């Protein structure tokens, strides 16, 4: 009897499974990425892919268009009423996915939540900015000092519903050390063009079209299913067999294969991330070197020699298979208008040797180098190329390439920046130069500010810091760009860093799909269409 009952349940379950299958006409877009969307809570982790995935369901006051220009979203328009007071006019008639209205209260609530403990997005809004509700659809941002780029990160600061968050015990972001699970990590209530129907962390996330969306959307998708596929070969196979319509990243060695396949194409384009080398210019003696009693990297000539010893064109052609743009600056040209005024000096090993000799190292020296091996495109291979190029000018580099979890544990501030020479990549979260000048190139001598927090080598030029401070408050675009240019010029002359390249985006895309590749590597479903 028990047996028969079992079969009955089985049959029912089968029927249910068949019955629940989506109607044939629905357009479903399947896509895969190497990593997970760890949480749906939009303030938990600032990571490009998660921001993009959440951005299908949540929206900010502003958004960025296909060329990264800032355009209105939940705010219809805004004005700088006074240099220290911005007024945002909110869009009317917008509803959250649970049907409740979007109002100024939600903006004020989100402004507090995004700056609460446990939020990883606190820097998206100045911590001393006061957010005041004027009426239901007007909000003022009162600042302590003028800030021309106040709204630069508003596109990634998603607005959450006050009522929903409070009702579900998610009034605060879930901190990493939480002891209770978070509701907002598994559920979503945004205003965006897609609704997240289900989210299994690390497995799959299902998006459904929002029928009540306030705006027009060019996408024809009814549904989108996101899956994590860790393994490179599996991800490539899934695209080639047509099981996914989009996947990222495509390993360099498989790009040719995808480009020549019958059902998929490669979409490549420059990314905003700059890959560079840094050198310890702080310690009086390097941690990992045979030079004792002094630090060769304190000498500008030695840094210059390293720069000239590295042939970026070879790295680009051989290691990156041309999927990189050599860079003269620490920022991508897409986000700094005057980047074209700088050119990268060609490699010159002879001059490099001479510079080393002048600096007192005619026979070169030995130094240790830290490199991640699972963080950036071909990161370890780049480092190996650097090692062999530097050996030509007499600098013997002992490479220590390890997984990012180990690499970052060694080189960051928490471990006293213990590195002598390293490879790092950086994308300014603001899409603006000030972030680079402050975080990467700023002196870390002042313990009162977080300036230079990611300046692992401790490069320092007070003149650059002064310019960076002016950049922060200058509202005139032309003047501001001039100041940025001056600051980068100082960095170039000092050879504070050795910029290598901007790595290329490498998306594998099914031929059935039309979509937009934004240089910040965000895939947004609102711009995806698929042949039914």
């Amino acid at each position, binding site marked *: 009897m028990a047996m028969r009952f079992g079969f009955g349940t089985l049959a029912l379950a089968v029927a249910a499974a068949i019955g629940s299958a989506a109607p044939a006409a629905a357009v479903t877009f399947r896509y895969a990425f190497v990593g997970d969307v*760890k949480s749906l809570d939009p303030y938990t982790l600032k990571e490009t892919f998660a921001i993009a995935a959440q951005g299908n369901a949540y929206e900010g006051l502003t958004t960025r268009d296909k060329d990264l220009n800032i355009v209105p979203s939940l705010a219809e328009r805004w004005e700088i009423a006074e240099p220290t007071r911005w007024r945002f006019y909110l869009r009317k008639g917008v509803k959250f996915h649970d049907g409740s209205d979007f109002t100024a209260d939600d903006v004020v609530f989100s402004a507090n939540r995004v700056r609460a403990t446990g939020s990883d997005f606190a820097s998206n809004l100045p911590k001393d900015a006061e957010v005041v509700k004027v009426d239901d659809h007007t909000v003022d941002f009162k600042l302590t000092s003028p800030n021309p780029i106040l709204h630069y990160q508003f596109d990634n600061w998603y607005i959450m519903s006050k009522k929903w968050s409070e009702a579900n015990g998610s009034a605060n972001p879930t901190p990493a050390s939480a002891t209770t699970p*978070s509701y907002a990590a598994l559920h979503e209530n945004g205003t965006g063009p897609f609704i997240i129907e289900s989210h299994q962390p690390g497995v799959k996330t299902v998006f459904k079209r929002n029928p009540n969306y306030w705006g027009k959307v060019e996408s024809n998708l009814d549904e989108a299913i996101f899956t994590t596929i860790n393994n490179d070969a599996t991800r490539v196979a899934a695209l080639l067999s047509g099981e996914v319509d989009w996947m990222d990243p495509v390993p360099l060695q498989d790009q040719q294969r995808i480009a020549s396949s019958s059902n998929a194409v490669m979409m490549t384009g420059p990314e905003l991330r700059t890959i560079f080398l840094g050198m310890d210019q702080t310690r009086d003696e390097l941690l990992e070197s045979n030079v004792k009693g002094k630090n060769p990297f304190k000498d500008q000539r030695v840094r210059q020699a390293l720069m000239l010893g590295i042939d970026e064109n070879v790295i680009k052609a051989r290691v990156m298979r041309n999927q990189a743009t050599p860079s003269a600056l620490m920022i991508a040209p897409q986000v700094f208008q005057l980047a074209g005024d700088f050119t990268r000096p060609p490699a010159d090993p002879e001059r490099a040797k001479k510079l080393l000799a002048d600096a007192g190292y005619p026979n070169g020296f030995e130094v240790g180098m830290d490199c991640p091996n699972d963080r950036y495109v071909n990161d370890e291979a780049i480092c190996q190329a650097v090692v062999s190029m530097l050996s030509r000018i007499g600098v013997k580099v002992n490479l220590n390439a390890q997984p990012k979890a180990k690499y970052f544990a060694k080189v960051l501030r*928490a471990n006293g920046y213990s590195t002598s020479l390293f490879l790092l990549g950086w994308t300014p979260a603001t899409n603006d130069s000030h972030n680079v000048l402050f975080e990467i190139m700023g002196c870390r001598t002042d313990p009162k500010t977080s300036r230079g927090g990611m300046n692992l080598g401790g490069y320092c030029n007070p003149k650059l810091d002064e310019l960076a401070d002016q950049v922060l408050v200058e509202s005139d675009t032309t003047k501001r760009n001039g100041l940025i240019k001056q600051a980068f010029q100082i960095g170039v002359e000092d050879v504070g860093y050795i910029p290598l390249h901007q790595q290329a985006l490498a998306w594998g895309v099914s031929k059935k799909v039309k979509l937009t590749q934004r240089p910040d590597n965000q895939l947004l479903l609102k711009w995806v269409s698929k042949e039914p």
Partner: protein
Amino acid sequence: MIAFILRRLAQSIAVLLTVGLIAFAMFRFAGDPVNQIVSQDTPYEQRMQIRRDLGLDDPFPVQFGRYVARAVRGDYGISYQFRQPVSDLLKERMPATLELALAATLFALSFGILMGVFSALKRDSALAALLQTVSLVGVSLPTFLIGILLIYLFSVTLGWLPSYGRGDTVRLGWWSTGLLTSSGLRALVLPAITLGLFQMTLIMRLVRAEMLEVLRTDYIRFARARGIRTSAVHFGHALKNTLVPVITVAGLQLGSVIAFSIITETVFQWPGMGLLFVQSVQNVDIPIMAAYLLLVALIFVVINLAVDILYTVVDPRLGSSLGRAA
């Protein structure tokens, strides 16, 4: 007998504690978890605060003690990356792994026995020689390579079977099963073959060797001399007597099939516990790593205990000796 079981239980607890201790000692070499749960812009002070909140600055014995104290109460902590209870995550992933392990074992048993019997009975035939060669390949090729070859052949080239994932699943209570949908069954084929191939060749070689041995024994000869039909001799008498060691091996291997499905799950993006473990190693998600390792240790302990007890049931002579030893 009861004394024996009690003693084994005490030993099991000691094993689990040791596994926990070794695992915890190793986590310190996996890297810094904090950097995996913050972004590049997270200020230093906040990183330090998270370290303190997670108790990562405490001395190793304190961290371990705290973990054990919570674990005995069934609290395995909250995953650093997903902010969900580890027990929920494991519970959600467990059906996928168990179904895969079961399918792989069934595949290994059925094909292994069939091929083993065949190559023992027709050991001079060309097919038997071929099977022997194939089995060598199965033993010597690494799992991930087999998986990728299968994907390349059956998914990319022929387009018959899916290359990743579990297909559609149906929920029966908390258990999500892929066995009831056609896409779920199709998705199961390649991973099950990949995971079961090694066991299959093992069983095939075992059956073949045992079978050849048994066929030489006197009672088979007498059975033949009595004029019993060949098929009855082979399957009724010979095969039956080869199965005891086969079942023992298959049972013991079940533990390793579950534990070592990590590679297969990674290749096929099979959403099981092994994949969760691999992802948590990359992200230094200590609560998941610790709970998974304990769980695997527990599975081995339970299987071994069950096998020991079963032995005494199957062979009473062992029972008396065990009783004496206890």
